[in-house]
């Protein structure tokens, strides 16, 4: 069976798990490939105008799989931990995909809801595997292999490799960089080379070492995010808050660039929250928030990045002179 896997949204977080799982069960995974102008245009034309950029991109990936696969894998990811949700868009994603006007293939949409506990989750996994194998033992062993792949992936990112470099199988040497910038935001925003206008590569070309939230251990992010008086109930936004707080409180980066997609609901509040918290904590790390959408112009975007990098560089030089 050919299963299509849109290379968008939470793909960047979980692909080692699902690719391994389906491969072990004998399915052929067909990826939609990295975002291109064609994919974005297809998505932007099909999707409701008010939807956010990443979901428009997702629609494009979905449409590019039509006619190429028997089914498409679009899990309904409601919750990935106790007492928290993902963004509502992930909860309605399979239904939004079904409502698309074109001939969308059959959608495989297991409900991932860890608020319901692990037993329920394992039942979901077994149910999902039953599509491909009658053997519960085989399904669970495929799942364990998937989890192992996911851990290896996480180990690599914590060791300092960005997900996109893992996907592209690229070695990066940034030992010559004189400043380090933390690039924050959802993985589907910062690792999508097309919609982020190849930001990571561009920053490296400017002599910047780029670090991201995926390089921080989960428990550290968790600890930093837990200092908020009321818990953020969106897991992925909590991770952004934990990441930026970690960098800001330790001054472990020279500057932070926070990428938001227009018009992201949770991020609209998280941005205001972070700006307030950093001001309150008298953070000395400069942060710039940049909003991307399908009309973002490369020239304007790059000018702002360059100006920010210059500013961070000058600040670092001046503080060194003071110390010296």
């Amino acid at each position, binding site marked *: 069976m050919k299963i299509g896997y849109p290379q968008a949204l939470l793909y960047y977080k979980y692909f080692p798990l699902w690719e391994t799982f389906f491969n072990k069960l004998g399915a052929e995974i067909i990826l939609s490939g990295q975002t291109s102008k064609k994919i974005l245009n297809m998505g932007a034309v099909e*999707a*409701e105008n*008010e*939807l956010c950029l990443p979901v428009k991109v997702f629609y494009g990936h979905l449409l590019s799989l039509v006619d190429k696969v028997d089914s498409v894998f679009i899990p*309904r990811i*409601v919750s990935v931990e106790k*007492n*928290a*949700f*993902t*963004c*509502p*868009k992930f*909860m*309605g994603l*399979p*239904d*939004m995909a*079904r*409502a698309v*006007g074109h001939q969308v293939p059959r959608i495989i*949409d297991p*409900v991932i809801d860890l608020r319901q506990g692990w037993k329920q989750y394992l039942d979901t996994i077994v149910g999902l595997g039953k599509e491909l194998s009658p053997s519960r033992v085989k399904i669970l062993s495929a799942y364990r292999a998937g989890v192992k792949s996911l851990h290896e992936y996480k180990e690599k990112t914590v060791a300092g490799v960005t997900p996109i470099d893992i996907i592209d199988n690229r070695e990066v040497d940034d030992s010559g960089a004189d400043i380090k910038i933390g690039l924050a935001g959802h993985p589907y925003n910062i690792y999508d080379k097309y919609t982020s206008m190849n930001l990571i590569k561009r920053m490296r070309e400017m002599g910047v070492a780029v670090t991201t939230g995926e390089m921080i251990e989960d428990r550290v992010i968790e600890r930093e995010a837990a200092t*908020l*008086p*009321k818990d*953020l*109930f*969106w897991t992925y936004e909590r991770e952004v808050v934990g990441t930026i707080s970690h960098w800001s409180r330790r001054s472990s980066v020279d500057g932070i660039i926070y990428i938001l997609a*227009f*018009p*992201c*609901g*949770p991020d*609209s*509040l998280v*941005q*205001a*929250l972070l700006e*307030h918290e950093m*001001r309150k904590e008298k953070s000395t790390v400069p942060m710039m928030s940049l909003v991307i959408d399908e009309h973002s112009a490369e020239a304007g975007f790059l000018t702002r990045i360059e100006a920010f990098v210059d500013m961070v560089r000058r600040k670092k030089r001046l503080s060194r002179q003071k110390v010296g």
Partner: protein
Amino acid sequence: MLTFPQMGNLERLLGDILERLEVEYMPPPKTTAKTLALGTKHAPEFSCLPLKINIGNFIEALDAGADTLLMAGGKGPCRFGYYAEIEDRILKDAGYDFEMVTVEPPSMGFTRFVGPIKRVSGKSTRQIWKILRASFPKCRGFDFLEKKALETRCFELNIGDTTKALKKAMDILSEAKKPEEIKEAIDAGLNVIDSVSCDKDRLVLKVGFVGEFYILLEPFVNFDVEEWLGNRGVMVDRSVYITDWIGPSAKNPVAGTSDDELAEIAKPYLGHSVGGEGLPSIAHTMLYAREGFDGVIHMFPFTCMPDTIAKAILGKVGKDLDIPILHFTIDEQTGKAGVATRLEAFLDLLAGRRRALVN
């Protein structure tokens, strides 16, 4: 001095509860263009409209002397659950000095619900519980009066009579305190609305009103669409009422369909709640189609996550069930004239369909 956001009849409902709790309060000035401008200035750019207006309401109330802000909380996934946290920070950054009192839903733990009420009122849990139980039938009464007015306005002989009668009925109910008084006042109010002179034989178009809670309940942001339609002889059925939302059960007696039933109805198009009114918007549209309504109006704030999902799915629902749906995405730029023009065109379309059906 305690205050709270403006939203439809909330002032009458909360007013009753706060008087029983013996808490001094002042409602913010009614929402105006100035309120919206203040909110837009301070709120994050692509936050949703209700947040912007909440902030505007609070600023106007703080300027008028309030020092305690009462807000509801929530546990997601809709942004509303984090409003209080964000509003607290934005207003403090703007230099205001106040206390934010956030009442969380009981499902997040009973103390997070009752604790803040105890703090502002000095009453015991038992007293608070008694007061809420005593006030609730009255709150529900306001919703029933509103519903009655929606059913009456489209038949009235003199435009404006129903609106006047509704106000009179609500004033009667506002005075009631004891259980039997409340019961009598609701009956008296319903009678007042019933006595509006009507032409019951008039052929009216029937339109369902779905979408996000705040937009549906606050006439300032929905451009008083219910009255606008009623004045043109259109019967409006609204899918959400305040007490259905804050009520202890999910049975929704005012709107008439329970949350469980709604989930079951929406299933072919949306298999899971997406927070806010995303799922109810779809389920109610399906119900209106089944009940032979002429059309559905769907309104929500720009960037609202749940209802944007609903909009992405409603296109297919409308096509499959053959019911016209008019969507309004409301933000600070939306103008009354634009809304009215689109509504007029929509009514023409519905009238044309009705004629075609009759022939």
